[in-house]
């Protein structure tokens, strides 16, 4: 990425066909709004980088290939060409009912039953290149296909569900949803905190009463 922090000139670039002029250290999303263009989609958390809504295709000046990015996290650079990527839901929903997964012996088999395409991974690494968070998407797909659910789940810890890997995958594996499936499955099947369970028992047995008139539940009266 070019060092633009020292530039005094306005930054000129093209965003969805609009020639935009903006200041330095302006995110692509801020530049879009600053140019007076209506922002009614492709927006969410406005820069925290957690919602994955502002997906863009970016080609930097002098580069041949375009890459994917999040518009809130990417600063405008001179000569950039940018376009929003529309919301694309997974083309084929991989349906499952987490609450029906009651037999943990067969749980790992469900990965293949729900996401049968996962074992067809071509190792093209298109998903890795598409991920704006630098997640090893392909490795997760391969681990999940091999039934290594916890290891696969760990790799998807930081996924923001932008679905760019879903769009990139020629085998329709839907990696983001596969990652979410193994994460949800491992949590719901293996997380059993003893302190929570003890407290739930106490509540069921009526040993956690609430007294609305206790001294601590009312303002202090001045002496």
């Amino acid at each position: 990425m070019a060092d633009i922090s020292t530039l005094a000139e306005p930054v000129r670039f093209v965003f969805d066909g609009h020639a935009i002029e903006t200041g330095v250290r302006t995110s692509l999303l801020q530049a879009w709004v600053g140019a007076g263009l209506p922002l009614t989609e492709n927006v969410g958390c406005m820069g925290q980088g957690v919602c994955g809504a502002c997906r863009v295709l970016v080609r930097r000046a002098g580069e041949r290939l375009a890459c994917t990015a999040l518009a809130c996290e990417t600063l405008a650079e001179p000569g950039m060409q940018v376009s929003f990527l529309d919301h694309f839901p997974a083309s084929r929903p991989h349906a499952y009912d987490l609450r029906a997964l009651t037999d943990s012996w067969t749980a790992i088999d469900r990965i293949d039953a729900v996401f049968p395409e996962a074992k067809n991974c071509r190792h093209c690494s298109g998903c890795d290149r598409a991920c704006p968070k630098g997640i090893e998407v392909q490795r997760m797909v391969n681990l999940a296909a091999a039934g290594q659910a916890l290891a696969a789940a760990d790799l998807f810890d930081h996924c923001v569900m932008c679905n760019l890997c879903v769009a990139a995958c020629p085998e329709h594996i839907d990696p983001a949803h596969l990652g979410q499936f193994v994460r949800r499955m491992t949590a719901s099947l293996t997380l059993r905190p003893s302190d929570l369970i003890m407290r739930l028992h106490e509540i069921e047995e009526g040993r956690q009463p609430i007294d609305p008139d206790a001294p601590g539940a009312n303002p202090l009266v001045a002496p």
Partner: protein
Amino acid sequence: MGIPYARAIDAWRAAAPAAPQACALAVPELLRGFHPDHRPGGMRVLRAGASAGSPCPAELADLLQADSPLEDVDIAGAPMLETDVLVIGGGGAGCVAALTAARAGARVLLATKLRIGDSNTVMAEGGIQAAVGAEDSLQRHFEDTLRAGHFAADKALVAALVSDGPDAIRWLIQEGMSFDLAEGAQRMGGTLLRKTPGGASAARLLSYRDFTGLELMRALREATLLQPGIVTLDRHPAVELLTDDRGRCAGAALQDLGRGRTVLVRSGATVLATGGSGRLHVAGFPTSNHYGATADGLVLAYRLGAPLREVDSFQYHPTGIAWPRHLEGALVSEAARSSGAALVNALGHRFVEELRPRDVVAAAILREIAEGRGVERDGCTGVFLDTPSLEQATPGILGRSLVTLTHLARRAGIDAAAEPLLVRPTLHYQNGGVAIDPACRTVVPGLLCAGEVTGGLHGRNRMMGNALLELVAFGRRAGASAAADARGERPRNVGLTHLADWRRALIVQGLPLGRKAPVIFPAYGNFDIAPARGRAA
């Protein structure tokens, strides 16, 4: 205005780690003098509607006392969808309500302004409160919440919140949400990692890293999308609620942004889960809120006759980014302070106990800035959040458990382990909202509310971690009530009859009919709902 950055950083370096110091001013005087809720001239008294006579921030009062963008003719011939339960809002509370209602057998339609999941929920960082510790109790959670809210909260709502807490955590785990475990604990039979939220008497904050809301929302979004019986409509904000001839809420008029047309939904029960209003930038503050947080639900419920409470009370989160300007308002989680990061002024001194309630800490920071002890950098003023001393005391903490903070610092162009962040309060949460009962019902039959749009739960200040708990606890309550209510009488003669009464009330009070609300998007979104109707956006 403040002390230049270079001098302030020298003072910080000389004193680091700065010694703790007690807050000199008494709390009521501190809040009265420096909290933005008390700024002179900021409040206006509502003149029309069910809460006439109550104070309300001017920015919100303008919207509450505005006219609808719709006329009767606009809905004539509009396509009509039919459902048992209509949920408006696709954040945490909306998804929980939709899931609960659908599992209770109702047909559910979930309409949302952007996409399902795009909401403040996904941005929540610190955690979710639930009293699970052996030394903790529901009673302590109850009392802490009331005290933090200055005893203005509805005790029945707070009791409902805290007693639902542990079961809400079990429910979330069943939906596939992960939680941090205590150091070295096993997944089966171990204990949950617990931190102490500001103002709490026990360690009660459960978390997943410092992106708890993201973890919660991605589990709930998948659950909602896969749940049979739920139809979701993205890019369909509600512009008006529908009524029947008995005054019952009968559904809503949605704006289909993609096609530029109005769509009507007739429903047996309607759940408003539209969130808050940070994007109104009350008192001129930057905000940590999501793009869609424009008070739509308050406007719609109020116009239909639902009273609001504590709408003059907002939460300014103490630690928003103050510099650099392009990140202004972005949130630095309270997890940083719960983990031990100190607040330091430009003289290198600590000036407040960091884990006091948020309104106290925010007011204390604003006092430092107002009295000239703030740090000034490129025209931005704030105080230091001492992350380098935290990293030194607990090596590896920034990379391991304060992931979002570290990411934010990198985008600000600094190394949080070497240089402190510059922070100041950011508009974070709407403490008040639509008055509800513990079953989430409003005074308007057929209209239920859940989540940040509601009032009464947090009093005049919300504790960290109670917002995520609220959306699960009350989302489930709203979903169950809505599914039950939808089985009762169906609405008849559906229309906009309530608007005639509303316009008469505005005229009687001499209020302008030219102003339209809800606004759907903030002004800088370059979108105006009134002329945009009939046109695709």
